[in-house]
């Protein structure tokens, strides 16, 4: 594991990352509540416990850089800068939702901030980020693409194809593997021949780095290095962030398959706690930390309230946006 260095993030930056992690956590608390009360149909996939990966990586990005992510994508899309209220509204299927209510929880997208999309088909987004990176390379924009996916996704064909293509074309991509130890319910060792996923990077001619995915500073640091490499034309990097999904796979999953004690161990390493401890070392007081948290909660609640007040789309909006011209 790479360890975080003091240089890697200033106190301010870490405080800011802590704020964003709190916002994402509260965002998903409310989402969870809505789903458990059947205020919303369909399914949702919470990433609580994994916030440091998205917040750390996107903190290494600059304007013009892009992300793609999965159905478990609230964190990435929010970390990349999508507005809380319109993200909530999308989950609620509201007209003001990021996607006008057409996509829902699994498809949060905000092109205006470079959040190119959340994908409900495992692995489908990896080549999309490859393509965004190809455009950056051709146009010489210096932009970098980060694509977030799970340990289970590492076994699907698109992973292989996108990694190889990015490797041979030396594309500016960060492949961010959020290794949370499980596919839906299957522990990684039952589905993956060699569970040391980082070594796969070798076969695609790129560096593979494993990092503590619950330590936002550590994630930021490896992401910065990968971004620098990518911008300099050095090609892609595989970042394997070790982390843990604190809830079940989706709304209906109690996660009974987890060995006893596992969750507790990881809760003790909750990214919010890790960052708080570090901030304490850097001289930030408990009171200051509480204030950050409370402000985040406030912000998120207000956003949720706005979203709840917005209208559902008129039924005939369903005909829009299929084709631009027809």
């Amino acid at each position, binding site marked *: 594991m790479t360890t975080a260095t003091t240089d890697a993030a200033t106190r301010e930056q870490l405080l800011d990352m802590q704020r964003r992690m709190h916002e994402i956590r509260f965002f998903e608390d409310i989402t969870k509540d809505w789903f458990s009360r059947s205020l919303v149909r*369909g399914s949702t996939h919470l990433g609580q416990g994994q916030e440091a990966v998205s917040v750390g990586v996107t903190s290494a990005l600059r304007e013009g850089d892009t992300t793609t992510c999965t159905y478990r994508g609230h964190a990435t899309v929010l970390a990349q800068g999508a507005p809380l209220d319109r993200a909530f509204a999308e989950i609620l*299927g509201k007209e003001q939702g990021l996607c006008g209510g*057409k*996509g829902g929880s699994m498809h949060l997208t905000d092109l205006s901030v470079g959040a190119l999309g959340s994908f409900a*088909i495992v692995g489908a987004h990896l080549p999309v980020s490859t393509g965004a990176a190809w455009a950056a390379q051709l146009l010489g924009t210096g932009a970098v693409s980060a694509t977030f996916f799970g340990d289970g996704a590492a076994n*699907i*064909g698109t992973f292989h194809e996108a990694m190889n293509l990015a490797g041979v074309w030396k594309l500016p991509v960060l492949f961010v593997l959020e290794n949370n130890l499980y596919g839906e*319910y299957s522990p990684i060792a039952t589905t993956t021949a060699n569970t040391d996923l980082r070594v796969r990077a070798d076969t695609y001619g790129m560096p593979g780095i494993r990092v503590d995915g619950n330590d936002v500073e550590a994630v930021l640091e490896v992401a910065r290095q990968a971004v620098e490499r990518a911008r300099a034309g050095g090609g892609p990097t595989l970042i394997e962030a070790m982390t843990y999904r604190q809830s079940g796979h989706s709304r209906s999953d109690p996660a009974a398959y987890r060995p006893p004690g596992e969750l507790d161990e990881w809760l003790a390493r909750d990214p919010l706690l890790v960052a708080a401890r570090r901030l304490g070392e850097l001289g930030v007081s408990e009171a200051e930390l509480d204030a950050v948290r409370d402000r985040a909660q406030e912000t998120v609640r207000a956003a949720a309230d706005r979203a709840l007040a917005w209208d559902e*789309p008129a039924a005939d909006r369903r005909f829009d946006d*299929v084709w631009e011209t027809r």
Partner: protein
Amino acid sequence: MSTDTLTPGLVRINYRKVIARALADELATDPTVVFLGEDVGVAGGAFKATEGLKDRFGDRVRDTPISEQAIVGTAVGAALMGLRPVAEIMFADFAGVCFDQIVNTLAKYRYTTGGQAKVPVTIRMSNGAGSGFGPQHSQAAENWFLNVPGLKIVVPGTVEDLYGLLRSAIRDNDPVLVFEHKNLFALKGEIPAEPDDSFIVPIGVADVVRAGDDVTVVATQQMRHRAVQAADLLTAHGISAEVIDPRTLVPFDMETVRASLAKTSRLLVVQEGPPDGGWGATLVARTAAENFELLDAPPRLLACDPTPVPYSGPLEDAWLPDAQRIADAAERLVDY
């Protein structure tokens, strides 16, 4: 559909749970039946539709990596060696990922080898809209496979049909795609408490769900149930609708439809999914060509809108034809 008082020898079970029963009965009957898919074993399936099978049948039930191409290809290879694999593709939308394996490998194996290969593979997939799963988890993907000879396609709309057709599919020596409509998961029905071959439903035979004289309404899965509701609405207007559930799309039971049209002279097909390229258009076209002289009104397809499946409740609800729209369309045909 079933009544509330239980018939002796039968058990009441829902559409989701009957899946494990059908699989268990075939696994128990035929030692060459095997079952593979993502999280189908230890976890009992993403919808908990296959609970208990791993405990009971051990190695013959296998959890796979998230590798749909490998799942289908592995089923094909195992079938060539004498097994009868059942593969689960969790959502039918994911058939896109393994479309090549289904269409180019599985469907054509027998033909390409000049009849050498028998490939008794069953692929189970949950299809359909209405539950708020959004554009990539709600498709009526049965319509993707109609132009691909070599496959059989079944679309059970009741608990009894799912039980009986899934068992038929597994016994069939040809590849069969079984679409399980996830918006019917809670639907109840009755099946025998003990495995009983007389409950097997043959592939390729339609069901006349409700007899009628004025208009023939053909519909599957959740549309079949809405068609029955529409028939109730129509009764109030003095219109008697015959509702036919084909149950199998390939091979299609044209004879039952023809016999109905001989009475009604009017055809309304209600199809989930966008209108073009679906089984509804195919049925309308075949009817127009083969039974033109029986028709007193234009044969009509009532499908969903030509858009992806929207997520938001009001949009998705409007996208799916409801009983009122079905009744209105039928009434217009009768008034033609």
